[in-house]
């Protein structure tokens, strides 16, 4: 009995050592290329930095920068509230939309290869410099682009013109433009999510569905009892990725604030805001993870 217990604990020890070995390269890299630079950069946030003749002088300032963020900076808290608000309404739409699209092109039908290829385009284009250039170009060339539309990634150039020519009242035009603009925006933010979910959906073995067919399950039941549980791990990634993506988007108020302060040379304040913001995001992401990971089905458990 004692022997058995002993043996078991050594097996577990061995497993745990193997676990460490597998993550070791990542751990070294994270310490060296993330934690250390991050701490060096956090040092700014606790000091008054002056650069004179190319020499950086730190003067320890304690929590001064942090107190300023919460008491005097009139942009931070409203900006934070706005970011959280954006996440609350954007993320569910993005997740549901990308799931819908993935399920739509899952089954075999003519032209499926073409659509799959096309659905990867947002990933290729939206992650590069090209998107910035195209954004300004497209907006410049579409003469009817209103002020409101500039916030969106792409506007449909002829659409506003068309509704105006039909003689519709302006509020209809504006509403239609904002709906189509929002649609474009959501589509372009869902690229990564769609591709991930498509891979997950495709990985479900056809034999599970065949078994369900024999048992006489309906499409609806198959969706809830097979598809959702099988893709739930990827769905969790998609959810968390969408949250982080929304928080760290370049259009986000706080992110703009960080880069603005940085551009003006207030490194210490910029890093302090960054630290506070990213920790808030981490806590929120962790909470979402806690709530949803209980619902995730893993084959290993």
């Amino acid at each position, binding site marked *: 009995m004692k022997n058995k217990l002993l043996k078991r604990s050594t097996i577990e020890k061995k497993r745990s050592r193997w676990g460490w070995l597998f993550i070791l390269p990542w751990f070294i890299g994270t310490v060296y290329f993330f934690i250390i630079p*991050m701490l060096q950069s956090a040092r700014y946030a606790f000091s008054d930095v002056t650069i004179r003749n190319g020499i950086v002088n730190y003067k320890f300032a304690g929590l001064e920068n942090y107190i300023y963020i919460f008491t005097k900076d009139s942009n931070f808290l409203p900006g934070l509230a706005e970011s959280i608000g954006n996440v609350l309404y954007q993320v569910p739409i993005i997740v549901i939309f990308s799931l819908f699209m993935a399920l739509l092109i899952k089954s075999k039908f003519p032209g499926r*290869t*073409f659509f799959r290829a096309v659905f990867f385009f947002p990933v290729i284009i939206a*992650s590069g410099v090209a998107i910035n250039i195209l954004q300004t170009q497209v907006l410049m060339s579409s003469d009817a682009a209103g002020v409101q539309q500039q916030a969106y990634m792409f506007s449909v150039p002829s659409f506003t013109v068309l509704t105006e020519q039909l003689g519709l009242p302006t509020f209809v035009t504006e509403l239609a433009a904002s709906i189509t603009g929002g649609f474009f925006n959501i589509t372009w933010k869902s690229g990564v999510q769609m591709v*991930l979910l498509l891979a997950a959906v495709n990985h479900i073995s056809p034999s599970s569905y065949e078994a369900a067919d024999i048992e006489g399950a309906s499409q609806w039941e198959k969706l809830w009892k097979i598809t959702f549980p099988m893709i739930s791990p990827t769905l969790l*990634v998609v959810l968390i990725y969408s949250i*982080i993506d929304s928080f760290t988007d370049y259009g986000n108020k706080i992110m703009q604030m960080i880069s603005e302060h940085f551009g003006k040379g207030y490194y210490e304040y910029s890093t302090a805001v960054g630290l506070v913001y990213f920790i808030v995001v981490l806590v929120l992401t962790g909470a979402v993870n806690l709530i949803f990971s209980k619902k995730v089905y893993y*084959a290993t458990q």
Partner: protein
Amino acid sequence: MKSEMNSLHRHHIMLAGVKGTKYIIGALRFVFLVGMSFVMLYPVLFMLSSGFKSLDDIYNPTVIWIPKQFSLMPLKLAADVMDYKNGVIKTLMMTVPSVILQLISVLLAGYGFARFKFKGRKILFGLLVFTIIVPVQSYAIPLYVNFTRFDYFGLGTVVGWITGKALTTNLINTNSVFYLQAILGAGIRSGLYIFILRQFFRNMPVELEEAAMIDGCGHLMTFIRIMLPNATSMLATVGVFSVVWYWNDYFLSSLFYRTTFPISVNLTTLRSLLTTSNMVTGINAQDLMFLREPILACGCLITVMPLILLYLLAQRFFTEGVERSGIVG
């Protein structure tokens, strides 16, 4: 008898109804997908349309989408200014090894997080999520400074205690900056890939692993022989993401390279050149004013084109891979 006929008849009608709705759903899906494709293809169509317009087409108000006089001049100018050939070579030199090294480290870490219980796993996973959240911009300056005097993970400093002179190397403007970060799980978006793969490996059935262990495979062999072949679809997805993000990277490339730059950095150079100066070799100032948009569109096009071609080539491979990997489930 009669009632049996009746029910059979009803059954037929029902079947026809099901078939009918199936066609309608199929047609609706097709229409919807065509609309979505337009949304997603729009920027590429825009680039193709405005990139090949000649000067006459730009003056001509009747030309909206399809140029009447096809011109390759904007393309040639864009390629010249962007030093396209060298830029692509540089991008490949950075991207290809980095992607391979990144995939290795990310697969190992994802598997480690998914399949093993060890002390500190939860905290380390929290750290992983934190690396996804914090953008590299917020620690780029110290990172850059550290690479100007890379001390071989502290070894150089230890050597310094003994010999009096620390062993450091300036790695700026070398590809090894990217390779080192990639193999150590700190490449571009590595955290996200680890998370994706961790979720994926966690969902692999235990029986597979147990069977391999009974056959005498060690943990590493189980990983290579059993887990990897079953992970082709996710591996392909992560691989393509990795290629795309390295290829499109602008921030790190402009930070770490000094002499020759990857193609996406050259694209921004092209843009700033076109917006700030009237002097571009091979074209006079007045024509340039009107050809700005076509030249920029061509610049974007030749930057993303290799990725699109690569994806079209790879797609066949990885949808096949998906269908073949039906063992799991």
